[in-house]
């Protein structure tokens, strides 16, 4: 429907409509960002205050909380830790399937995808009890293990699609020179595939950072990441909307920027290569 026919009136309508919708969709985030710079009184004033002296007080308050740094650290540790671990498992597997495919390769890939279909709530009870027995409840390690496992199929798939696009001739040349499969992987393929590995890693970080089913169920304080910290603001005692907003803004800003930068790759990762 994108008409290139010069119809200025139509173009004006499209521009207005597209911008109105974009602003409406984005509005809750904008409003939250605005509230983060208000005082608590301004945050709940009716009618809402639009003109106010911005303050950084909320950010200072949130950061000054004795345990804030721990939540941030936990989020960073679980999302980057699980991503690195998933990559360590997935890179050899994707390499093997992309460059040495066998008859079983397609079904292995599909089987990996199917593990992603397990609804987390179906295995919540045994995982909870298992973690309780093993002392993994409310620990970063426990969450990191779960995130590695839930992201591993996506990571394998994305790497597989990237590796398929690497020209085989380069690896072929290496083989002629006598490179062994491991040398081929580390010396030839990985340097070529850095962009693909990076965007796979980014998707995995985004998904882990925002994951809220396991983090709410398996952690409470020591091992809790930011998703669980934000959820603690839902208690009805007291209205700390300005602090909630400040904490939320700090929690989502980095991932929003990363997501915006890598939206293209996200599409193929999230759809297992079915839409590119």
């Amino acid at each position, binding site marked *: 429907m994108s008409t290139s026919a010069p119809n200025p009136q139509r173009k004006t309508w499209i521009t207005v409509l597209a911008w109105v919708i974009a602003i409406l969709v984005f509005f809750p985030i904008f409003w939250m960002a605005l509230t983060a710079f208000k005082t608590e009184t301004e945050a709940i004033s009716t009618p809402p205050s639009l003109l106010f002296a911005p303050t950084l007080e909320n950010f200072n308050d949130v950061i000054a909380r004795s345990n804030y740094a721990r939540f941030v650290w936990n989020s960073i540790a679980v999302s980057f830790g699980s991503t690195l671990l998933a990559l360590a498992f997935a890179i050899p597997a994707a390499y093997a399937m992309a460059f040495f495919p066998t008859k079983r390769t397609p079904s292995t890939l599909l089987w990996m995808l199917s593990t992603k*279909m397990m609804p987390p709530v179906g295995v919540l009870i045994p995982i909870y009890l298992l973690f309780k027995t093993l002392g993994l409840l409310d620990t970063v390690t426990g969450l990191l293990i779960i995130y590695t496992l839930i992201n591993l199929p996506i990571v394998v798939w994305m790497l597989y699609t990237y590796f398929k696009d690497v020209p085989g001739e380069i690896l072929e040349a290496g083989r002629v020179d006598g490179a062994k499969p491991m040398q081929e992987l580390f010396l030839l393929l990985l340097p070529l595939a850095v962009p693909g590995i990076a965007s796979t890693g980014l998707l995995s970080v985004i998904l882990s950072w*925002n994951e809220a089913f396991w983090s709410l169920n398996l952690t409470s304080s020591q091992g809790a990441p930011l998703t669980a910290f934000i959820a603690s603001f839902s208690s009805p005692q007291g209205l700390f909307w300005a602090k909630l907003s400040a904490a939320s803004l700090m929690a989502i800003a980095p991932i929003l920027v990363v997501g915006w930068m890598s939206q293209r790759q996200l599409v193929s990762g999230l759809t297992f290569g*079915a839409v590119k």
Partner: protein
Amino acid sequence: MTTLAKTSPIAPAAKTNREVDTRPLLWPSVGVLFLWMIVPLAMTLYFSVIRYNLLNPTLTGFAGLENYKFLFDDPALWTSLWNTLVLVGSVLIITVVLGTLFAVLYNQEFPGRSIARLLVIAPFFVMPTVSALVWKNMMMHPVYGLIASIQSSLGMQPTDWFSDYPMFSVIVIVAWQWVPFAFLILLTAIQSLDAEQKEAARIDGAGPFAMFFYITLPHLSRAISVVIMIETIFLLTIFAEIYVTTSGGPGTATTNLAWLIYSVGLLQFDVGYASAGGIIAVILANVVAFFLVRTVSRNLQQG
């Protein structure tokens, strides 16, 4: 299917001519995923046929299908299944319709297009607990919320969204998070629509509506089915949004299957009963997964 051609080739002949044992490279991933898939599921299945309540250790032994019988006799199960269906169905309809319309709209040329697109996809990157609390407090709060102040400035009675329309409110929040997902996928798909095909249709005199229904929509059908299936997998177990807003209430108004299992298992500690519910969730998800795997495998085989 021009979109899919690039993803498909699975075994270029040139690469298969060497005998290499790749099992050591493959088995770590396969092994951990196998354990992850089998162990907890087997445990759920086992728990679902024994008497197991953490609060009542004297209750033991094989229960057969007792837990399932309790579950099926419990009106809470049917309410939660209905609520799950309403939640998933409504969000799917909203996200697919709006996602498609947005994809068409934002595929047009207009000033600032790339920035407008970024604004529309932004909610997808917001963590669920933040989205839910922003909507619950700043948008939908009956006293201090933005919607309430708009309503009172218009002389209307502010609505108490989460008490009077709890399911609707949850649907709004979840749809807000997932419209950007549908939009992002469908925009990518629409961009691969052949310009020549569109030009040909235009020369044949197709208007914008005919273009949409006869060219754009058929082109998007595969992408739409992928969106539906992937969203369904995630939406079947919506949890965080309910956790921070309604806690399944008022009453059981927003109790979906995920919340029911959570509340029976981890709040009332009836492991056997909750595990039977877990098995129901697994079966439901597998029905959907079957179709998703079939679609994706068709892509894999297309060369």
